């Protein structure tokens, strides 16, 4: 895993060769996992004063919540992306057909214009 590197004066973190900013759902999954894990671990410690067990709870919660949220977020993103691609394809077709008889947006018949 490459570490931090400077590119065009902006810090870029690579995860197995990919810039993490380009991976959909990466930031939200890890932020949710880290904060939830920390919160659960801290809450457990405050309740029980057991350091090691609280750390274990916190860590395992981080792993579980990150995995679950990542799966949910990627599935939702994949469904949304499919709809975006359909819209994009429709807009491209409408642009190509604009002004012709098959124009999906035309309101006036060409021979009446």
């Amino acid at each position: 895993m490459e570490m931090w590197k400077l590119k065009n004066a902006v810090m870029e973190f690579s995860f197995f060769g990919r810039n993490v900013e380009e991976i959909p759902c990466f930031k939200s999954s890890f932020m949710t996992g880290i904060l939830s894990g920390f919160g659960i671990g801290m809450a457990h410690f405050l309740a029980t004063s057991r350091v090691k067990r609280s750390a274990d709870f916190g860590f395992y919660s981080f792993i579980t919540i990150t995995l679950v949220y990542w799966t949910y977020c990627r599935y939702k993103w994949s469904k949304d992306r499919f709809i975006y691609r359909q819209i994009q394809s429709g807009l491209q077709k409408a642009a190509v057909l604009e002004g012709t008889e098959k124009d999906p947006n035309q309101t006036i018949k060409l021979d009446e214009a």
Partner: protein
Amino acid sequence: MATWSHLLFQDSASPTMEQMIFFHDHTMIILTLITTLVVYMMMNTMYNSFTNRVLLEGQEIETFWTIIPALMLIFIALPSLRLLYLMDEINNPALTVKTIGHQWYWSYEYSDFSSIEFDSYMIPSSENLPSSFRLLDVDNRTILPMNTQIRMMITAGDVIHAWTVPALGMKIDAIPGRLNQSSIMINRPGLFFGQCSEICGANHSFMPIVVESVNTSSFIKWMNSMVE
């Protein structure tokens, strides 16, 4: 194309490769989290002083560590199978290109509209321009139109070769006496490089592939110029 420190995927040039990169991201995140979990457990085990001289079994934990990995594998398998079947979807190619592997060059045939055939040899290092890519540039590039479904039929004339273009997510064996078929759609213009991927003799490393993706009008002009 790949440069000197490029270890992983090149930027995708087709929807298939794009989906493969997304699947790779998904799988690597799961693998990284599992590895982190296992390392944490190993550290915990090494640095504690718990002992149990009579530990024989633990039914609950054994059930747990059987079911959880099975679920993880399902989470990896579902997107994988989805992508696998997506790659085999029926589409209507507008163009068919035949690729024949030889020792040690590729030949291409565009037979749909008019018979265009040419060979594609690597440019030797001695004849390279300072701006050329060593061991990757060819004399005749494979010109393909972008945003068009293309059927590739690949075979070989002597020994087994493999036609590879990483940016398009393609690696297809070229086997003598057999026609392998694949479908591609290139969604951006540019030059995409690949190399023969099946050992085929002395110059196996010196028969590259260069796909040049152009817009449809440029492709039609090129075809007309090849026919004349």
